């Protein structure tokens, strides 16, 4: 789960990592009031996407009037499809130097990795690509935690004139990373100002698997992704017109690949997960069929924990309301029962993933 900049900064505050003074506002009146207390402010759109700055979602302002105007404009914006519902009004702190500090998980090394660069800001990925020697990378032993000497090495690579201050920030940021089950925590830019080092931006991604032991408010947006997640499934919308429902991520990817292989384009990725029951399969069909442009649906279930008869029942439940043609493949646990139930409803079944994929693509072609 991604946190908003303001949420991440609230956590930084708890850990005593320096951040600019700020107010979070969701209307323009608040913006003016907040700006009144500060001289020079930055107004920043709070959205779950990058490139806010380039999209005009960040503005500097002097005084309440200008702040009001900017906040009004930004609160009316939509950035890469995300409507801006909140802005952060922040005291402007002039960066004398912009650095980068990030912690994530190195899957290959199977441990946290801290990265630091004396040159940060929006071009950090280019810097990593073109001048990798500027990035200092330190792996952390998950049981031993960060050693002082590691924090010192990172601090020195950032700014040899502010080592103690930076060691402190690095160690605190590592605590943030661990305590909050982060997949990522990032400060970019970490700025040197005339009053010290400060985190001008903050990014945090929490491991979804750990949300049950972490206390983060979940934001509802009514998206299909969200509905699927709440039903224990995984949905990702795509550009095509063939709806796909599969149990298991690997088999789902194989199914999508196969659809594409036969010339079709998937409208979504939908993993109903191992162990999906009648209700979930029904829900999955509801979600996938409500995707725009969906002209046909492939259902590919390999029963293991999922039972084919349960899946069949879920399909039959929703059949009367469904206006979109289906191609179904059922294999594995209780396959015979499941197939029999569907065939009773006159549904033809494919014998394999490949046959089903081919079938659903042909369905689309014949419809055109």
């Amino acid at each position, binding site marked *: 789960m991604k946190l908003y900049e303001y949420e991440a900064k609230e956590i930084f505050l708890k850990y005593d990592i320096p951040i600019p003074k700020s107010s979070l506002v969701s209307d323009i009146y608040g913006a003016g009031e907040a700006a009144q207390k500060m001289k020079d402010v930055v107004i920043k759109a709070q959205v779950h996407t990058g490139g806010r700055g380039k999209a005009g979602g960040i503005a500097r302002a002097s005084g309440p009037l200008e702040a009001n105007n900017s906040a009004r404009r930004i609160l009316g914006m939509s950035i890469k499809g995300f409507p801006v519902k909140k802005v952060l009004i922040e005291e402007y702190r002039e960066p004398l130097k912009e650095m*980068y500090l*990030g*912690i*994530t*998980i*190195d*899957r*290959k090394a*199977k*441990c946290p*990795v801290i*990265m630091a660069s004396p040159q940060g800001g929006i071009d*950090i*990925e280019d810097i*990593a*690509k073109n001048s990798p020697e500027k*990035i200092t*990378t330190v792996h952390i*032993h*998950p*049981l031993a935690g960060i050693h002082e000497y590691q924090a010192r090495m990172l601090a020195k690579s950032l700014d040899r004139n502010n080592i103690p201050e930076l060691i402190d920030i690095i160690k605190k940021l590592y605590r943030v990373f*661990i305590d909050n*089950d982060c*997949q*990522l925590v*990032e400060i970019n830019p970490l700025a040197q100002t005339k009053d010290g080092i400060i985190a001008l931006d903050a990014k945090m*991604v929490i*491991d979804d*698997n*750990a949300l*049950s*032991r972490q206390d983060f408010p979940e934001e509802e947006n009514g998206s299909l992704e969200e509905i699927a997640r709440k039903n224990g499934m995984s949905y*990702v919308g795509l550009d095509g017109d063939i709806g796909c429902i*599969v*149990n*298991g*991520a*690997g*088999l789902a*990817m*194989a199914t*999508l*690949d*196969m*659809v*594409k*292989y036969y010339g079709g384009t*998937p409208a979504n990725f939908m993993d109903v*997960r*191992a*162990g999906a029951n009648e209700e979930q399969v029904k829900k999955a069909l509801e979600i996938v069929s409500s995707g725009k442009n969906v002209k046909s649906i492939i259902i590919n279930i*390999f029963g*293991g*924990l999922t039972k084919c008869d349960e899946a069949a029942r879920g399909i039959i439940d929703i059949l009367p309301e469904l206006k979109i043609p289906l191609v179904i493949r059922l*294999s*594995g*646990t209780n396959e015979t029962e499941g197939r029999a139930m569907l065939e009773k409803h006159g549904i033809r079944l494919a014998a*394999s*993933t*490949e046959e089903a994929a081919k079938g659903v693509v042909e369905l689309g072609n014949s419809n055109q």
Partner: protein
Amino acid sequence: MGILINKDTRVLVQGITGHEGSLQTEQMIDFGTNIVGGVTPGKGGSEVHKKPVFDSVKEALGETDVDASVIFVPPQFAADGIFEAIDNGIELIVCITEGIPVHDMMRVWAYLKTSSSRLLGPNCPGITTPGASKIGIMPNPIHRPGNIGVVSRSGTLTYEIVDTLSKNGIGQSTSVGIGGDPVNGTSFVDVLELFEEDPETHAVVLVGEIGGTVEEDSIEFIKQMSKPVISYIVGVSAPPGKTMGHAGAIISMGVGTALEKIQAFEKAGITVAKSPSEIVRHVKLPPYKV
């Protein structure tokens, strides 16, 4: 014979009294697995499918020898179950549980390295040697004894591949699901090494997917293997993974997409099948012909 398990392997089920644990224990018994008991804290003294339940792994070991443990413990407690198995010297630990926090798994991995235990998973379907033993959740009927080793990161896709092989008359020495989590135990290379040494395995089917670099990491070993490896890598049409901020982009620079993996395999001269039926075709062709 196959790898890692055989019909004598004594298996303990951690989380045996849960819905999943109980159900799968029954399936394993049906398959012929030598289940010696189970563990659920607070349920010691009871029975599940006529197998004794203990409060702890240690108490189980007081009553019976154990070669392997399979874990069906809920995600928030699964890491603790693995620690318990490691501390009690269980040689093979198969963790089925999906959804374990990645920080837990990093800690488990660092701990595992100090032990002599082997962890398979988590979030994996387990391991099956047809005609001998099954530790995990692969459906019983899909397997057929034979000489193809299967190793995969997926769950249901593994069933699909194994089923397709079996239906085409191609039996398996052992099928192994290493699990799809970002941080897990046994790797492709670990399993490939075992297959390479196993006289019953004549060729290997490797099923990979987008994300991470475990497929790429196995290339050097595959090139040295005496046995043919047919690979199948899915996710070509998958949406690009959400990169984890800049840090994710920096650390995983230029690796992880299915296409990149396929290209890397092909460049190394490793056969890449485009579909399950193509796997079958490749297995039936010389020089792999079984």
